[in-house]
């Protein structure tokens, strides 16, 4: 047979079955669509962010510090400015903004900018062009969320601390902006020269100081950064150059790309399973044709080539459809993430992603189609003479198929390793998938066996018939349960994990505080309490905060640790703090030494902490108010500082050294919103230290919350009020959108599961029709036949849900316990909803795919003869 003949036969032979091949096509399309969408999305976003890196940074070099720049840094900046390099400083802090007329208030992020900021990128305002006028007077450009919150209009005056600013425009787009951040605290830009008028930068204020440098020559920027970095480091200033920014973006997005790539491979893998299922469905209808072809003298090789050609053509078509669908999804993804992305992601089909999708789609189609196709080699030409009632496939040990299966697994693992760009991670992911599939398979086996063994005698005939149908010869019950179960597993795990992550925020929302008052000075506590009482708001808790740094660990001054490194590093460059290595031999991590600590003092442990070592001071009174005082450390910070029980830490509080001894180590549940601390002191140690207080209160109504904020801020402009209901809403929004995207992708796996279900419906079609016709002949009504089918598919869906959701309980428990470290609780509501949807869909799909069964008249039982 010539290739041409083979091709045309392949085409002609598929004539009446192309509709059937549609299943095959859609399995591949789903996988390819997911792959193309996520990869295209990731690479487009990466390209876009790289292109906008300069605008996002707004400068060539950025300096940042939690303290005012030290004398040497200031000196450097001044000399650079004299040398013709543009410098703009920005001072940022959280504060309350108050509408000067209606008194409405809102927590805001104040950014006091010097002229010139930002050096790159355009800030869009409404009315347009107002950014240029910001510096002209006591002006403010604010985010739209603030205008809404205050009920303000352009031209209104707001008060920040003791200063007043006129709103001249709304901020619409700023490079590198993550829009949703404004729901936590909208930003207010004011001219830097008026910042002192607010009188908010005193002790205890959480202020970030930044300086932005414009250095036209990129090499010079690097030189400046490297040259002055030791000085900046010594004065606790972090610096970042455009190049570093770009590297960071590349790294972060590379990781995103790899992660999303894996999701894509995953989808394609599921598509492959769908292909295998659809192919065996197709083949089950082709057995007679094959037998006839064999009778007429076609070799098994030619027959194989014939159907492989059809599979290849469908694979190509499916991949093409998938690429198109992927482009559509790629367009939908950024819409789902509106407000969370720092750049606008343009809609465009990513060339490399599309090509990868095409090739991978074709390869998957052929590889997974080959497995069921190899079975047709065993079709005997005798079948053309004698049609048997039993299904054809004589299963046994076929070395070729075994080899093919192994090659397939190896190929999939190789693809995953390639996508992960890391052999170990790739193997780990492969192992994870393998274990999941194995667990699903085992669970599916156990469930189906159990169902079969269970005594059915008491059940109505129709139901027993439904169960019996699941074990029809040549059934695909296991395949469907595993494939659909996998979808259910992914979806349920996501939903459960999301619920576990969100629960700490919403738990006890009836009883817990919803207002947090920050920066309350000692002498303001009583007046604030009175204001709150006027609105029937009770203070539930008050927590003192003392800012401090570590002066010495185990008698060794911190400066020594840091200077050591300056000498050690030789070229004067220091690694980023985040790149700290594990502390060796109790050597403290740099970031733990360098950071500012906000600590508290109290008599008792709170609900969110428990002791893991040592004893709490109320159980003994060892220090008697004498130094060194007792301090309790959180377990991770104790490890990072390389200290344990009995070790000495000296703290520097506003120049005063307070010596302490570690007397206990605590585990802290950071997921709770209560103020938690790395270091808790016995009260005697800090009672007289300069301190700020945090008050926790609960207001029942939104009106009370708003009114209380307004009155507190009117009398005490330095006090900031966080309305937790707003924070919670914003968090819900963020997590909701992110999980929407993940669920969207998980939906692909569920969809593929249904393709497999359709495949199995198609495979068992002839047997099902034969049986139903027979039952009709014996007197079954259509309603009875329908009940049997409904039962069969609902059971199939139920099995899948049981298996998938059951395993998801284990998986989400493990995630909660080991990855997120949050308490686990099974969210039954969402689980039941998922279960109901999958069972209902499964029943609906099964029934609608079995329409023929209803239409076929009993006469065909005779015609079959």
């Amino acid at each position: 047979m010539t290739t041409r003949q083979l091709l045309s036969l392949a085409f002609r032979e598929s004539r009446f079955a192309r509709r059937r091949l549609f299943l095959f096509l859609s399995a591949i399309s789903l996988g390819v669509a997911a792959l193309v969408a996520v990869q295209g999305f990731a690479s487009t976003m990466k390209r876009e962010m790289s292109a906008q890196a300069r605008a996002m940074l707004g400068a060539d070099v950025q300096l940042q510090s939690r303290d005012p720049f030290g004398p040497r840094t200031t000196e450097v900046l001044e000399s650079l400015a004299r040398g013709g390099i543009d410098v703009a400083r920005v001072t940022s802090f959280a504060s309350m903004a108050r509408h000067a007329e209606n008194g409405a208030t809102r927590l805001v992020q104040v950014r006091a900018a010097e002229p010139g900021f930002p050096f790159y990128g355009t800030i869009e305002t409404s009315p347009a062009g107002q950014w240029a006028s910001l510096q002209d007077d006591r002006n403010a450009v604010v985010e739209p969320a603030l205008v809404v919150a205050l009920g303000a209009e352009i031209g209104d005056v707001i008060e920040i601390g003791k200063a007043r600013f006129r709103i001249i425009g709304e901020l619409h787009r700023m490079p590198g902006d993550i829009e949703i951040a404004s729901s936590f605290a909208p930003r207010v830009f004011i001219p830097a020269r008026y910042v002192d008028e607010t009188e908010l930068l005193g002790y205890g204020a959480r202020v970030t100081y930044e300086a932005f440098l414009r250095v036209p020559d990129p090499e010079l920027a690097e030189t400046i950064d490297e040259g002055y970095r030791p000085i900046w480091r010594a004065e606790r200033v972090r610096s970042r150059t455009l190049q570093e920014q770009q590297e960071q973006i590349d790294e972060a997005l590379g990781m995103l790309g790899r992660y999303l790539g894996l999701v894509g491979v995953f989808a394609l893998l599921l598509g492959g399973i769908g292909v295998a299922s659809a192919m065996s469905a197709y083949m089950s209808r082709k057995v007679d044709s094959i037998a006839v072809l064999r009778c007429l003298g076609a070799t098994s090789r030619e027959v194989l080539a014939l159907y492989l050609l059809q599979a290849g053509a469908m694979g190509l078509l499916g991949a093409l459809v998938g690429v198109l669908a992927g482009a559509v999804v790629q367009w939908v993804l950024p819409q789902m993430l509106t407000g969370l992305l720092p750049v606008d992601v343009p809609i465009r089909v990513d060339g490399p992603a599309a090509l990868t999708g095409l090739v991978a789609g074709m390869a998957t189609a052929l590889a997974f189609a080959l497995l069921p196709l190899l079975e047709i080699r065993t079709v005997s030409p005798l079948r053309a003479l004698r049609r048997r009632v039993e299904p054809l496939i004589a299963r046994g040990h076929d070395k070729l198929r075994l080899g093919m299966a192994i090659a397939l697994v190896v190929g999939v693992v190789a693809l995953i390793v390639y996508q992960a760009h890391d052999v170990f991670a790739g193997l780990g992911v492969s192992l994870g998938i393998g274990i999941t599939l194995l667990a699903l398979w085992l669970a599916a086996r156990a469930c189906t066996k159990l169902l079969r063994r269970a005594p059915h005698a008491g059940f109505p005939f129709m139901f027993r018939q439904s169960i019996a149908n699941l074990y029809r010869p040549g059934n695909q019950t296991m395949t469907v349960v595993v494939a659909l179960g996998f979808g259910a597993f992914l979806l349920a795990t996501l939903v459960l994990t999301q619920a576990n992550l969100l629960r700490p925020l919403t738990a006890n929302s009836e009883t817990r505080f919803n207002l947090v008052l920050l920066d309350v000075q000692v002498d303001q506590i009583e007046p604030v309490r009175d204001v709150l009482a006027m609105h029937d708001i009770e203070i539930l808790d008050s927590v003192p905060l003392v800012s401090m740094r570590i002066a010495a660990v185990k008698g060794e001054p911190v400066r020594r640790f840091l200077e050591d490194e300056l000498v050690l590093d030789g070229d004067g460059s220091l690694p980023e703090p985040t790149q700290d290595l594990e502390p060796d031999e109790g050597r403290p991590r740099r970031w733990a030494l360098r950071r500012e600590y906000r600590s508290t003092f109290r008599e008792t442990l709170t609900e969110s902490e428990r002791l893991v070592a040592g004893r709490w001071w109320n159980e003994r009174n060892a220090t008697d108010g004498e130094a060194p005082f007792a301090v309790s450390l959180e377990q991770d910070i104790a490890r990072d500082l390389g200290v344990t029980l009995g070790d000495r830490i000296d703290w520097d509080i506003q120049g005063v050294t307070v010596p302490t001894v570690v007397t206990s180590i605590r585990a802290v549940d950071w997921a709770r919103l209560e103020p938690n601390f790395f270091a808790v002191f016995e009260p005697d140690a800090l009672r007289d230290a300069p301190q700020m207080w945090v008050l926790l209160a609960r207001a029942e109504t939104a009106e009370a919350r708003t009114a209380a904020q307004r009155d507190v801020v009117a009398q005490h402009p330095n006090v900031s009020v966080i309305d937790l209901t707003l924070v919670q809403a914003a968090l819900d929004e963020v997590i909701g959108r992110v999980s929407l995207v993940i669920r969207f992708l998980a939906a692909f796996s569920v969809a593929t599961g249904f393709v497999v279900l359709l495949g199995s419906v198609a495979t068992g079609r002839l047997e099902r029709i034969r049986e139903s016709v027979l039952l009709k002949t014996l007197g079954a009504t259509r309603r009875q036949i329908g009940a049997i089918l409904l039962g069969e598919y609902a059971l199939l869906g139920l099995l899948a849900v049981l298996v998938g959701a059951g395993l998801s309980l284990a998986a989400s428990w493990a995630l909660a316990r080991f990855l997120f470290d949050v308490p686990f609780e099974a969210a039954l509501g969402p689980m039941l909803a998922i279960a109901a949807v999958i069972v209902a869909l499964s029943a609906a799909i099964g029934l609608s795919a079995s329409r023929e069964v209803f239409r076929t008249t009993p006469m065909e039982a005779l015609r079959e003869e």
Partner: protein
Amino acid sequence: MLIARGLEKTYRSGERTLTVLRDVDLEIDEGDFVAILGPSGSGKTTLLGLLAGLDTPSRGSVAIDGTDLAPLTEDERARFRRDNVGFVFQSFQLLPSLTALENVQVPLELRGDRNVSARAAALLERVGLSGRLDHYPTQLSGGEQQRVALARAFVHEPRILFADEPTGNLDAATGEGIIALMEELNRERGTTLVLVTHDPLLAGRARRTIRLADGKIVADSAAA
């Protein structure tokens, strides 16, 4: 028992109309044993289907025991069959996922009868399969499968039993056994038997033979 009047069955295929059966009049007495003979394409199976109410005639009517099948819906005809009609097929047509006993229970269970297993088991014993109640069809020989099918056809005590080449897939000796069984059951229970066959030997056992050719009755031993 069974009265067919002016039966006609045509199939439309595009422009052409194909008449498979034309103007068939037939009466079958209660307890009779009738064989329908004829070459391939003569309309035997179509006639059987119409008589049994599996299909509706293009013209004419069929009445069994005074019930006219024509105005009944498909489901009503199904309910009628479940009470009055039994079937035996050439290729046995057992449900592969059910055991022998379960297969025999099906007609009773479709009716919603209770305590059906004793009746089914008794009938399987009657056809000589008391030791194979829990076997699946694939575990049974062809002859055994057809005996299960016979038990299934008789279990709900139908007034009339239709068989389509019941020995077609069996060797001569086994087929003989099946025929003998059918005759015995016909005698014991007074069930009317109507069977379609190619086998002259089998036809010879019938009390009455009807010959079909080109969709028409060309010979009827009762008329002779």
